[in-house]
């Protein structure tokens, strides 16, 4: 039985290797200036006044894929919340206050708003410069956890009403869906970017629905990361197993 398994692995591996080698031999040259898909994507994004082609691909040409990615993140966080909940044989101990060196504490308090505004900047300028909802959302959520690193978990819990973040996570996913359905109601396809004016090239209002979808994704990612880290922190800092159970 074991030998059979090894043979199966060897045959499968050899087949995969052969296919990969065949595919590699047929690849276009490294670092070419033109690519059939790339040229078309750039053309389409310029036609809709979106300066950042990647944003145009993510939120306009393939906005449907992004909806899938967004729901994957939502479902993954939901799964973590269920797995990391407080079980019946566990109890919560209040987090111990920590004495952090003063320069580190002050650094955390100063950088927290700066990082938050930078994250919002990255979200808002997704259609103009590199960045977008995902990147900016993660930065904004990380900024909040400077309070845990620079002080203690109690301080983070005081500025982080978890229910608000759970709600805004769901609201953001709904907002993305509503934006998609709005174009259906207007008589075009789901998530087709034809409803809003395209605006002036290289300004904040350019790109039609791209900035709005970006904002929805940014809100979803930021709340999802906060909720995810909250449950990890709960488990690591607060929740303890009952002794002798």
């Amino acid at each position, binding site marked *: 039985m074991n030998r059979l398994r090894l043979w199966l692995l060897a045959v499968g591996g050899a087949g995969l290797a052969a296919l990969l080698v065949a595919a590699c031999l047929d690849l276009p040259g490294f670092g070419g200036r033109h690519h059939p898909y790339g040229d078309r994507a750039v053309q389409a994004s310029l036609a809709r006044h979106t300066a950042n082609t990647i944003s145009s691909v993510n939120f306009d040409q393939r906005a449907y894929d992004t909806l899938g990615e967004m729901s994957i993140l939502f479902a993954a966080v939901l799964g973590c919340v269920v797995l990391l909940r407080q079980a019946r044989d566990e109890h919560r101990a209040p987090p111990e206050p920590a004495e952090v060196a003063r320069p580190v504490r002050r650094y955390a308090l100063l950088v927290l708003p700066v990082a938050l505004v930078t994250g919002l900047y990255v979200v808002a300028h997704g259609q103009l410069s590199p960045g977008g909802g995902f990147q900016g959302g993660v930065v904004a959520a990380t900024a909040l956890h400077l309070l845990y690193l620079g002080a203690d978990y109690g301080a983070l819990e005081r500025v982080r009403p978890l229910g608000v973040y759970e709600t805004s996570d769901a609201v953001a996913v709904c907002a993305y869906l509503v934006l998609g359905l709005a174009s259906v109601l207007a008589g075009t396809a789901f998530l087709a970017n034809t409803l809003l004016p395209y605006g002036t090239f290289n300004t904040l209002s350019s790109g039609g629905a791209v900035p709005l979808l970006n904002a929805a994704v940014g809100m979803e990612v930021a709340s999802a990361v906060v909720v995810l*880290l909250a449950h990890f922190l709960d*488990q*690591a800092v607060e929740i303890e197993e009952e002794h002798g159970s």
Partner: protein
Amino acid sequence: MADALIVVVLLLVAASATAAVAQRDPARQALVLSFLGTLLAALFTVLQAPDVGLSQLAVGSALTPLLIMLCVRKIRRRGRSKEDAR
């Protein structure tokens, strides 16, 4: 000549990814992983993909290390409290 930078960064990525796998202790693995995350962001920039680089930077530099280290802390604490209970 212009490809020298790409070669240097690719070699570093290969070396640090191998090193991350070769570490045995999860905490040390997390350290190498955070280095690898930053390095990958540099690789994506060199390959003219700053959007992907930003994603990698946002996730790899602080978020992934925090998740891994919180898991490590939980497991260590659990081991300690089991010893206390005995």
